[in-house]
């Protein structure tokens, strides 16, 4: 069983990332803890304890503990995405592609933290928290969960796949309408939103990349300091006398600072780089939703056009083939119903997106504000510790100049 320092207590708020939002007056709080490696070889995976504390009547009991794995979280996300069009579904941490990295302690810890944030965001969202699928996820037995996952034939597709559908629909519409131009909302509001999200993603991804590199640099600096310290110590030994001693102490100090840097690298990863990555993922989730909106719009347009043609057909038929009219009228009514539904769907998505954007911006400001705070705190502490360590060496070096 893998335990991290945070997870020793198992349940409660210890494992909570500060970004996991506290829930509303009706109480629903979840924690993802105690990662454990199960299975063997290629089939090995990590399971997590998911502990739910609630006072909601729909749930049985005040506290429930279930075991879940990453793919269960994916299932939940997919179902929510299908059912709650227009809502920004909280992002999941990525699948890991590199085999040896997959089971490393650091990876497991960052994933656990991200899953915890994920589930709590759902629990805090006014609409999502009412989801039946959430209840299943939090309460069902492991077997039920497994069969639920198997059933789900993965109708859900990522935004890349959605892009493909988008293109298909686009070509269909072009064919029907005989136009080249893709059909898209032309309002300034939509265009601004789209541009904003796309550009934000680019810039954020860049910042996140540098944050990740910064973590690496801390480690590298730690390593070089350590190596330098070791070499200086050896030099000190061969020198002897006060100077030799000063060298040795320099080496000691360098090694101390080196391990401090390593610690800071870890904190930087968990408290700064991960939140940034989370932000990028969240933006991607918004992108998915916007794509859904675009699809809904297209469908609506497509149907409207189809109705127009159908109407013309109908009129023709009334004149030429009265026997076909009844059937055609039926089809026409069906089309109109479809169109109405498509319009309603589109409008729901639009209104939801508008609400979500406000929430999203506020949420992000808070999340990132905290991440900045932690970042600055970490750097300040590190710098202070480093300054102290070097300063303490100074009097001993001074002593040598006698």
């Amino acid at each position, binding site marked *: 069983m893998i335990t991290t320092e945070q997870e020793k207590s198992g349940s409660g708020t210890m494992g909570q990332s500060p970004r996991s939002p506290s829930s509303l007056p009706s109480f629903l709080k979840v924690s993802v803890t105690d990662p454990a490696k199960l299975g063997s070889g290629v089939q090995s995976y990590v399971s997590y304890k998911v502990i739910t504390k609630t006072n909601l009547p729909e749930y049985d009991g005040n506290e429930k503990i279930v075991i879940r794995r990453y793919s269960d979280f994916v299932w939940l996300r997919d179902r929510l995405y299908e059912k709650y069009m227009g809502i920004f579904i909280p992002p999941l941490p990525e699948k890991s592609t590199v085999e040896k990295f997959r089971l490393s302690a650091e990876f497991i810890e960052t994933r656990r933290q991200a899953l915890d944030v994920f589930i709590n965001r759902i629990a805090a969202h006014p609409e999502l928290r009412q989801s039946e699928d959430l209840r299943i996820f939090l309460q069902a037995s492991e077997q039920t969960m497994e069969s639920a996952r198997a059933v789900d034939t993965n109708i859900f597709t990522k935004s890349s796949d959605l892009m493909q559908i988008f293109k298909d629909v686009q070509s269909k519409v072009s064919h029907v309408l005989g136009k080249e131009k893709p059909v898209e909302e032309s309002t300034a509001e939509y265009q601004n939103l789209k541009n904003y999200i796309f550009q934000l993603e680019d810039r954020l991804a860049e910042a996140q990349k540098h944050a990740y590199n*910064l973590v690496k640099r801390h480690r590298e600096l730690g390593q070089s300091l350590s190596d330098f310290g070791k070499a200086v110590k050896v030099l000190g030994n061969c020198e002897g006398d006060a100077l030799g001693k000063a060298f040795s102490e320099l080496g000691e100090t360098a090694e101390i600072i080196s391990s401090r840097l390593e610690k800071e690298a870890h904190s930087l990863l968990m408290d700064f780089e991960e939140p940034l990555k989370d932000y990028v993922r969240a933006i991607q989730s918004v992108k998915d939703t916007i794509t859904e909106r675009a699809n809904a719009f297209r469908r609506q347009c497509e149907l409207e056009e189809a109705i127009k043609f159908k109407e013309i057909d109908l009129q023709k038929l009334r004149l030429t083939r009265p026997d076909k009219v009844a059937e055609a009228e039926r089809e026409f009514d069906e089309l109109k119903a479809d169109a109405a539904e498509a319009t309603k769907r589109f409008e729901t998505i639009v209104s939801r997106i508008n609400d979500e954007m406000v929430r999203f911006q506020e949420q992000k400001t808070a999340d990132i504000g905290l991440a900045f705070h932690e970042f600055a705190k970490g750097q300040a502490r590190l710098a202070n510790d480093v300054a102290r360590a070097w300063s303490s060496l100074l009097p001993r070096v001074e002593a040598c100049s006698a």
Partner: protein
Amino acid sequence: MMGYEQGLEEAHLYASKEQMASLVLSDHHPSPPSNGSKSLEDPLYSSPPFAEIHANDNHPLHSPPPKQTVDPTHTSLNSFLEPPSYAEAVFQSFDLDSGNVRSLDHSPSASQSFSSDYLRISVSDPRKEQDVAGSLVPGGGYYFSYLITTFTNFPEFSGTEFNVRRRFKDVVALSERLAESYRGFFIPMRPDKSVVESQVMQQIEFVEQRRSALEKYLRRLAAHPVIRRSSELRVFLEDSGTTDVAPRMVDQQVGSSPSLGSVDGGAAAAGMSDGTQAAKTGRDFFRIFRELKQSVTNDWGGTKPPLVEEDREFVARKEKLQEFEQQLSNVSQQAELLVKSQQDIGETMGQLGLAFVKLTKFETEVAIYDSQRARAADMKNVATAAVKASRLFRELNAQTVKHLDKLHEYLGVMLAANNAFSERSSALLTVQTLLSDLASLNSRIEKLEAASSKIFGGDGWRIKKIEELQESVRATEDAKNSALREYERIKDNNRKELERIDKEKHDDFVSMLKGFVVNQAGYAEKMASVWKAVVEETSEWICE
């Protein structure tokens, strides 16, 4: 501009402190596209030719350029970010105490012994010259000459300020002359002759590297307590009568050209007379050949085993020095890697800051919600701090290079010491060769005398031969005595230098340590205060 920077950054990190300092000037990069304007307003940022950037550094009376108080990084961003407001002056005082006074002369213990005497040299203004005399292709050859500027109050100089033009060949000649005159001293190593492939390095970079290397070399010579007063150096620095001071090919075998020999006061210090010409085996190819054979041969009839250094104390010190050299080399390598890491973290911090600056501008421009504006404000604070921290890392690194450069200097001193020790060995070999010559001459005389005495009335031929041999013996005896004197002189020089190095090494390394530690501590403190401000500014986001 990019090539210039890359050349600097990829060139050997220790190549020149001026180069590292100028990394502070030429930042990594041009404003992000969203800003539109390039930072052309800042004159420091538009690509200056090499010579200009170093103009200040070359003036011997100027200390190395103080740290930039206005960072020319992104002038279009400077209005966006706060300029560095903290007092750099506090910092410079650290440096002035430990570093600057010394670096004026580039000499380690200069402040102690030579406070009133000075010899300040700088090398500048590389100029392409037609090589009329030596080129194989008529009118096609060229070389570079450098302006050597000297300020001094040494009485033996004919003035206080000199400007001469010299080429690399002249410097090589100077180093060879010094090697002959000052055997046994730890003579600073001259810069490499080897020319780097022109595909790797552009000519302008090569010339700059060479200029810098020459300057360092001459300054080291000027820092050596004995060599600084040599006539060879003085002539090199002040004699502008001839631009071509390099000896002709013919001269190289003999060594010092006659004109120098007669003016020579420095040679007198070395205690040479004409009789030692024969003992100057460095140039006597025949003798070299014999000595090689000698050192290889096991039995030459002598009673002493070859080349044993009787001086136990010397052997012990030499071994200690060799071990020191090895460890030093190791530390020097790790130091280079440390500097690279410090550079990297500074760069990444800067890139992070810039990325946030872009984000901030973006969010500010398109902000619809107040939460966006709040976020943009937070981001701006972090961006500013990150950019400041990045600058601090760069400055720290420049200082670190300056201090740890001492390691590199001493590696050079070790090389010089090894040379001095091999001069000693070869002088000893000369003595032993001559002793063996004497022994064999004398044994031949004995044999001849024995044979001759058996013949009544003497053997005309043999008697003549004996006289010739006795003549040789006398000459060889003289040579041996000279060689012995030379050997003793070199031994004495070795000893004096070892003592000098011991003392200077201690002082230099203490000051290096101090400088290094003070810098690390000082810059860490500055960084802490930069981040502390952001901690306070973002404290509203802490949850319960």
